[in-house]
């Protein structure tokens, strides 16, 4: 009798699991079909955005349309995005485990790799930052490459010295602060928020991107470390 009741319960649980699976699969397939049908019947013309961007590109201070959109036409989005990055770093730091890892030594190959690669990483990052004005590139790509160097530093168990640890909060916030400073300066000088004066637009964008590169690199490295790095 007990066996019978157990078997009924097991088969009922199995049926419920099968129904759940079927329901999930059906809704996902319905979503896929609806979106696919929408894409299939898209009209082959687009709205005015690309022509607007192309027409105003000479007023933006840069020649790469993606950088112009990112840093000038929709600069407010990028400002908030750097803020979100900083928030994520704060979140990860506050969720960090309390246990302190004893200093692990890295195998010698990683340290050799670090020594050979780090100069190239810095040069490539500087190039990506600079070329963002004319060709694909910019702050995010440069910051990500620098963060790769940071990850290499962390995995080769390099001990940071006193000055480096003290400058981590500065590095985390300098991108957002520079962006905000430029925005407030444009407001104080009488223009709208983040409306760059035309002869200075290129230089201002480069300054914002440089600070953002440093910030993005430090934030992404902190995200990888997962806790505040301890230094000697």
């Amino acid at each position, binding site marked *: 009798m007990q066996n019978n009741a157990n078997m009924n319960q097991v088969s009922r649980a199995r049926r419920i699991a099968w129904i759940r699976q079927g329901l999930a*699969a059906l809704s996902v397939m319905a979503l896929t079909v609806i979106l696919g049908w929408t894409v299939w019947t898209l009209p082959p013309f687009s709205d005015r955005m*690309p022509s607007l*961007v192309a027409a105003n590109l000479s007023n933006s201070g840069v020649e790469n349309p993606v950088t112009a959109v*990112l840093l000038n036409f929709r600069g407010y989005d990028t400002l908030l995005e750097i803020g979100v990055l900083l928030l994520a770093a704060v979140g*990860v730091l506050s969720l960090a*485990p309390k246990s302190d890892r004893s200093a692990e030594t890295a195998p010698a190959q990683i340290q050799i790799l670090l020594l050979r690669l780090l100069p190239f990483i810095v040069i490539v990052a500087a190039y990506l930052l600079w070329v963002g004005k004319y060709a694909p590139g910019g702050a995010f790509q440069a910051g990500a490459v620098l963060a790769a160097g940071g990850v290499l530093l962390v995995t080769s168990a390099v001990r940071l010295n006193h000055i480096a640890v003290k400058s981590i909060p500065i590095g985390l916030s300098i991108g957002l602060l520079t962006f905000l400073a430029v925005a407030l300066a444009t407001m104080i000088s009488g223009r709208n928020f983040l409306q760059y004066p035309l002869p200075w637009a290129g230089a201002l964008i480069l300054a914002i991107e440089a600070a953002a590169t440093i910030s993005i690199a430090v934030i992404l490295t902190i995200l990888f470390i*997962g806790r505040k790095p301890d230094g000697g």
Partner: protein
Amino acid sequence: MNSFLLYALVGIVLLGMGLYRLVMDPHLVKKILALNISGAGVFLFLVAVADRIPGAAPDPVPHAMVLTGIVVGVSATAVALSLACRIKENNGTTELSKNEPE
């Protein structure tokens, strides 16, 4: 079939696959992986739709949006993984329970 249509459909299918695994798999890190796949699918869809006019340059506004999206995605993944590690340290497991309510 245009080349943009192929990528847009692939993006939609990736979104669907990721959503299904997000809902059905009990392990937290698998859920985060599935969420990343869904996000990649959505970005693919957006950029494919930006490129749908043959012969013209692609629309740079969705490019900027997807760039922002990738960076925000990695931030969210980092916080989610931190949370998952904390859950593992507090509860001892990262699998959500499969029990049906009785």
